Structures are given as C-alpha cells and as structure tokens.
C-alpha cells in the first residue's frame, strides 16, 4: 500500500492548495503530501464537527429524560485506536522519504556557500566569488547549499523550493534542491535574529523592513550559459559611476545601511556622518582603556574586516566581519569622505 501511494506522487500532483509556486524538482512530493493530509484533515474535521452538531441538536435535553449508563463499544474503541496507527506509519514513511530527497546531494551537485549575518545573506560560488543577497543558480542542476552563520542563528528558507535549514554559528548545515523553473524566487530568514534600531532601509531593494524580516535575498534561476557567464565575472565596479557612488551602492548592498545612518541619527552602530577624518572615542577592551583613535583609512579597513577590534564607545560589538575586496573598501572610504 505504501509503495502504491508514494508512487502516485510521480504522476503530476494536484494543484497545490495555498502553497507558493514550486520551482524545484523536489517540491511536487512535498506538495502531494501537503494536499493529501490537507484533505484528510478537512474530512475528519467535517465528520467530527458534523456528528457533534447533529447529535447536539437531535439529543437535546428534554424534561423527564431518563439517565442511562453510557454503553460500551469495545470493537469500535479498538478500531479507532488501531486503524490510525497504520495511517500514521504511512504518513511518517512518506514524509521521511520526501525529506531525504532534500538531504542527500549527488556527486555532481553544484556547491554554493550560504552565510547568514545580521541582516543579509552572502553566497559563495565554487570559484570563490561572493555576492550579497542575489543568488544565481543554473536551471536543472542539483544545488547543494552549505550553510553557516557569522553571528547568531538564522534560517535559510526558500518557500518556492519547500526547503529550510538553520544557519548555526560554529557548524555547517546542508540542503539540496534542483531548480527546474526559470525565474526569481525569494529567500527569507526564518529563525528570529533581532532588529536594528530605528527604521533603516533593507539591504535588498523591495524587501520588508526590520532586521529579521528585512533579511531577504533573491534566487535567480537562469540557464547554464547565463550562470557560467555570471560566475566568471569578478565583482566589478559598475560602469560610469564614481568611486563614492559605488561606495554608496555597496553601503546598501552589504547592509551597512541597517546599522549605520548617514544623517547623524542614532542606529545600532555609529553614524557615518562626520566620522571620517575625526577622532572617535573607543569602548574599553579586555586589555584596558583604548582611548580614542583617528577614523582614517586604516581604522575603517580594520573595522570592516575585524569589527570587534576597536568598537566606538557606547555601541555593542555585534557587527559581523566582512570580506570585501581592496577596491570595494576604497570605494566605501570614498563614500564616507562625502558624509561630512
């Protein structure tokens, strides 16, 4: 019976009720199970509620009702204990089988590194290229995500692929999916990870606000040719814009914007307005008082790559370390210089 029922999932699944459009080869199995249990639930709810309402009406208390001992129906009781046992064994088996398809990667799976940090996603391709909040994957090719976290727990959630896995500091977790529909699909963070102060813009254009809820990325499922072309290009400065403008773009894409304001207002981190080229007071580190330091090129570089080294007074050491190229750091510095 189990074989018969699970093999049904190989035929086209019924339209998924209230599930987002499926974009992966593994989704139909999940959708089939969801729909099946959905209709089973509706059936039981209707039967039980229906009987309840019918009997409440039919056996309404009348004056002079005799009071009887409740009869026993041993066979009925055994039946409603034993039959569900078989049903739940089937559910367990079917659920586990579909789950394992998203857990085991084939030999030639494309490995993509996923790093979660407050409050954006970084994707790393096999050739070492890293990109924030936009992930390109080739259609029809199995992808294995290797997921990690830089600060606190996050969860990599792709509703279109029916996949989700926590990003845990200090360990790597994995997920498998095979995109089979061209187009874009969102990634959410599904493990609560806090919020910045105030109401800053999210790192991804069009994403919701608010830290945890702003931690959205976009998966672009593209053809193999487009994917190969994208991966070969290094992180390049867009054509025809100044270093300072590129720095401004990076400021948003790397989610600097969620903690550092540029208008002097208070944020989770110090504002960048009037910071560059001035002295900043520092929090006392473990080694004792740090005093103050000049916010020059060297300090900015250190604060990007090793944010905990010298934290501005009054702020918590919560910033994750960044891996930016020489050119990108310089562009951000140029942008900071404009904020006087």
């Amino acid at each position, binding site marked *: 019976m189990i074989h018969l029922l699970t093999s049904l999932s190989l035929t086209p699944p019924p339209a998924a*009720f209230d*599930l*987002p459009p499926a974009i992966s080869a593994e989704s139909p199995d*999940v959708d089939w*199970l969801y729909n099946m*249990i959905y209709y*089973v*639930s509706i059936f039981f*709810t209707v039967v*039980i509620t229906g009987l*309840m309402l019918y*009997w*409440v009406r039919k*056996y309404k*208390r009348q004056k002079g009702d005799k*009071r*009887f*001992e*409740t*009869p*026993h129906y041993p066979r009925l*009781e055994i039946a409603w*204990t034993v039959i*569900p046992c078989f049903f*739940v064994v089937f*559910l*367990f088996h079917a*659920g*586990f089988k*579909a*789950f394992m*398809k*998203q*857990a085991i990667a084939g030999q030639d799976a494309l490995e993509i590194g996923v790093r979660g940090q407050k409050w954006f996603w970084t994707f790393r391709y096999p050739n070492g290229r890293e990109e924030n909040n936009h992930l390109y994957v080739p259609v029809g090719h199995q992808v294995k995500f290797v997921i990690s976290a830089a*600060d606190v*727990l996050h969860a990599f959630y792709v*509703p*279109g692929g*029916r*996949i*989700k*896995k926590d990003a*845990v*500091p200090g*360990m790597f977790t994995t997920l498998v999916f095979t995109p089979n529909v061209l187009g874009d699909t969102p990634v*959410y963070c*599904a*493990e*609560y*990870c806090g*919020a*910045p*102060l*105030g*109401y800053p813009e999210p790192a991804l254009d069009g994403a*919701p*606000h608010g*830290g945890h*809820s*702003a931690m959205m990325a976009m998966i672009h499922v593209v053809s193999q040719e487009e994917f190969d072309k994208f991966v070969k290009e290094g992180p390049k400065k867009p054509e025809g814009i100044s270093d300072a403008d590129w720095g401004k773009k990076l400021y948003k894409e790397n989610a600097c914007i969620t903690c550092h304001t540029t208008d002097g207002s208070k944020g989770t981190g110090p504002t960048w307005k009037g910071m560059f080229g001035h002295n900043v007071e520092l929090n006392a580190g473990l080694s004792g008082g740090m005093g103050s330091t000049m916010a020059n090129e060297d300090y900015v570089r250190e604060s990007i790559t090793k944010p905990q080294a010298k934290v501005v007074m009054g702020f918590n050491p919560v910033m994750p370390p960044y891996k930016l190229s020489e050119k990108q750091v310089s562009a951000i510095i140029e942008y900071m210089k404009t904020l006087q």
Partner: protein
Amino acid sequence: MAAITTDQHGHGGHDGDPNVNYLNNTRGIWSWIYTLDHKRIGLMYLAAVIFFFIFAGVMALLVRIELLTPGRTIVDPDTYNRIFTIHGVVMVFLFIIPAIPASLGNFVLPMMLGAKDVAFPRLNLLSYYIYILGATFAVISLLSGGVDTGWTFYTPYSTTTNGAVVLMVLGAFIAGFSSILTGVNFITTIHKLRAPGLTWSRLPLFLWAIYATSILQVLATPVLAITLLLLMLERTLDIGIFDAHKGGDPVLFQHFFWFYSHPAVYIMILPGMGIVNELIATFTHRKIMGYRAVFVSSLALALFSFLVWAHHMFTSGMSEYANMVFSALTFLVAIPSGVKVFNWTGTLYKASIWTASPMLYALAFLFQFCIGGLTGLFLAMLAVDIHLHDTYFVVAHFHYVMVGSTVFAFWGGLHYWWPKMTGKMYDEKTAKRVFWTVFVGYNGVFIPQFVLGSRGMPRRYYDYLPQFQTLHMVSTFFSWILAVGLFWMLFMFIQSLRHGKKAPRNPWNSAGYEWGAPSPPPLENFVKQPVFTRGPYDYHLATDAEIAED
C-alpha cells in the same frame, strides 16, 4: 441511597450557619494574604492569571495592529520584537501554565476528592508567593527595557542581545519552582486525601488530567530551571556552554529548552482536556465513553511528551537520523489524542444534551482541538514540516492548541465553577452572546494565519511583502472582535459579582462530587465527611435529589 453524604441544604460554616462560607468566615486583607484555604489561594491565582492574561493579550493586540499594514504601522522593529516577546513570555510562564491547575485546579481538586484542603496548605500558599515573586522579576525586567529574544530565549541571540534578559529568565526560573511545588502538592493530595469510597477507578477525569500534569511539572520543570540557570551564567560569566566561538553548542540550548517546553505543552493542554471531560459529562448527563481509555490516553500523552522534544528542531541542523526518530515518535501522540476526540464525540450519541454556556466552550474546544491536532500531522511529517517550520502555520497551529483548546477549556471551566466559587450566577443570555463573539473572533484571527504560513510567511516578522497584506488585515480585524468578546466576558463576570442571582448548590444538575458542597462552600468544603458510593459520572445511579439544583 445518598451517594454523597452531605448536608444538601446549603449549611455552611463550622457552626452550621448557612450564611458563613469561605469568602466571609474571616475578613480583612490579612485574612487573604495569610490564608491557607485552597479555595482562597485558587481565587488569588485566578485574579493574578487573569491580570497577566489581559496584559499579554493587549500586547497581542499591539502585534496585530503593527501587522495591519506593511512597513511601519505604530512602532519600530525593535519595539515590535519586545512586544511579541512580552506576549509570549507572559502568556506561557505567567498565564497558561498556572491558569488551570493553580487556579481552577486548586479550587476544585480537594472538593472533588471530598477533602478539606490540599495535603500541604502552607506549601500551597508558598507556591503562590513564589509565583508572584517570579512575576515581579518579569515585570522589573519589562520596566528596565524589556527583552527582545522571543519567549524561546534561543542562544546565541539571547546571550548577546541588549536588555534585561537575566531578570526575565530569573523570573521564569523562579515561577518554575511554584509549578514544581504545586505539582508535588497535588500528587500527594490525590494519593492521600481521597474520601472513603473514592477508588482510583472513580477518580474524576479532571483529576486524572491534573495528576498527569503534576507528574510532568515535577519531572520536566527542573530541566527548565537548569537550562535557564546555564543561560544566566553564560550571560553574566561568559562561560561558553552555548557559544560556538568557545567550543560550545548553540543547538544544545534548544535541546535543553524543548526537553522542558514540549512537556510544558501537555502541562497546558492536559488540564484543559480534563475540564472538557467534566463539562461533557455534566451537560450530557452520562459518563464519558471509554472512561478508562480516556485516562490512559492522558497518561500516555504525558509519557510521549518526553520523547518528542526535538520535533521543534527539524531544521536546526540535527542529523537526519535524529529527525527520523523524532518524527516517528511524534506520530505516536496522534493516537491518544484521536482516542480522546472520538470518545468525546461518541459520548454525545443518544445522550441528554444541555447546551448551557460552559458546554458551548466544550463543544468549541472539540472543534478547535480537531483543527489543532490535525494540523499537527502536517508538522510531524518531515518533508512538510521543513516548509512550514517557523512560519505562521506553526503560529496558528499552536494557538489552536493553546488558545482554541486550553484557554477555551479554561473559560468553560470558569463559567462552570463560577457559581460554586462565588455563590453568584452570571447572566446566561449574555454568556451565550459572549461565547459566539469570542468563538467567531478567535477563529477569524487564526484561520488566515494557516494560509499565511502555507504561502511562506515566516513568523516573528515585523514587516512583510504586500502579497500577505489581505490575510494579515483579516486576522487583525478579527482580533478586535475577540478583544470585544473578552472584555464583555470580564464585564459580565463583574456584573455577576455585583448583581448576580444567588447560585443554587448545583446549578448544572451535575452528579460531580464537588457539587455536593454548598455554593459557596464553607471553610472545610463539606459539612460532613463525604462517603462516595458511586462514580462522579454515574448518572444512572445518582438520585434526583443529588442532581437537583438545591
């Protein structure tokens, strides 16, 4: 044959003065502060849990208002996170865990046993003050900035974020001891203080449920205490048990936390099921079908609840093998839950059914527990859970179990025992209108949330994509209907205290043992030591006089 040998004419007080009862036998504020009477302690718990329910309920309304529109509606993201954390922490630790056992349970448990009080009255009072102390720490934490961790306190977020996390955790830690002591007290009372004739096979089903709950409280709460203690040490001394950078493991915290908090789900739901058993028996005038199967399922649920904690962690990075084992064990829960639902429904067949207001809550419980239980099957199934985990589907699922089941049972029980507790009736017509308002409001809030979750809306989100707005608006709109219903209920009970008709001994024509005592009962509950010669649901053996109003 008088099964319940008591004075049936409302004689109260040790002097036999019918006008002296537990509410007026001593007077003044100190007579309440120092009271050892389980009934007064029950009322004091009731007042406290209702206060915290209203407080945390207002927080829920704020959450719903913020989610009315995408973007900023009333508060900043950081404030929003603090609000939903308060809602969760207060509802779980200060409302729903003590709500039924410590308030209604405290009041009726000795009466259902034919006892004068619980086994350890002083311990009972101590539990209350420990609970108040824990609540005080939680309130101090709120006043000093609050907490933005969510009620689950997951590390490493909870060890690195700002705010009064240690105070809040300390509050939950202290409140836990209250729970343990109440559990010990109730277990002892059920073992030692049963009246003559009250055999185990005659024990009211509410007490079987309280008994199973107490075992959970005694066995599981210490794990929470240790977990919270470790969390406090981690935050204050930075020892690194849960910190990956120091060789610790953040997921270990989740194992510890759910090892308590899953059984805690049953600490919340079992007493609710117990109340529903009492309501269905009284208002159908018969014993619950399969009495034995029903209490065995209570005990089975208590046992299974210790074996399924990691089903909260299917996406946490646990091994696939562990996921498989916990998925299989989780499905076991479906069997006793199903047995209970079938027995409750079956009891209605050919019964004599009175749909008084408490019974309406029991019937709503049945409907909503079906939904809560069946949506649990989605979440036990591994592949489907992966999609639904940490979305609004889970939020709706556990609110169907916690609110739609437990809290509806609590309201049903409150209506049911209100005349016994206060000696006053409430207005039945108003109560029915309140019920329908609450029922419509409640279901309107949470049914859209199932759809939101299936469509991929994650929980604990301050803001969302425009595609989710319609459903969020529907949910928020119904939250106002629910709020109106609940404030109306509060007003109705206050009106009852002020102008309510005097309650007869047995307004619901029940054969239950507690209804043998006058309303409100005298200090030591029964005028004479009761001797039970029949079960509490043996309506065919109960005399007409026993189930008459007076």
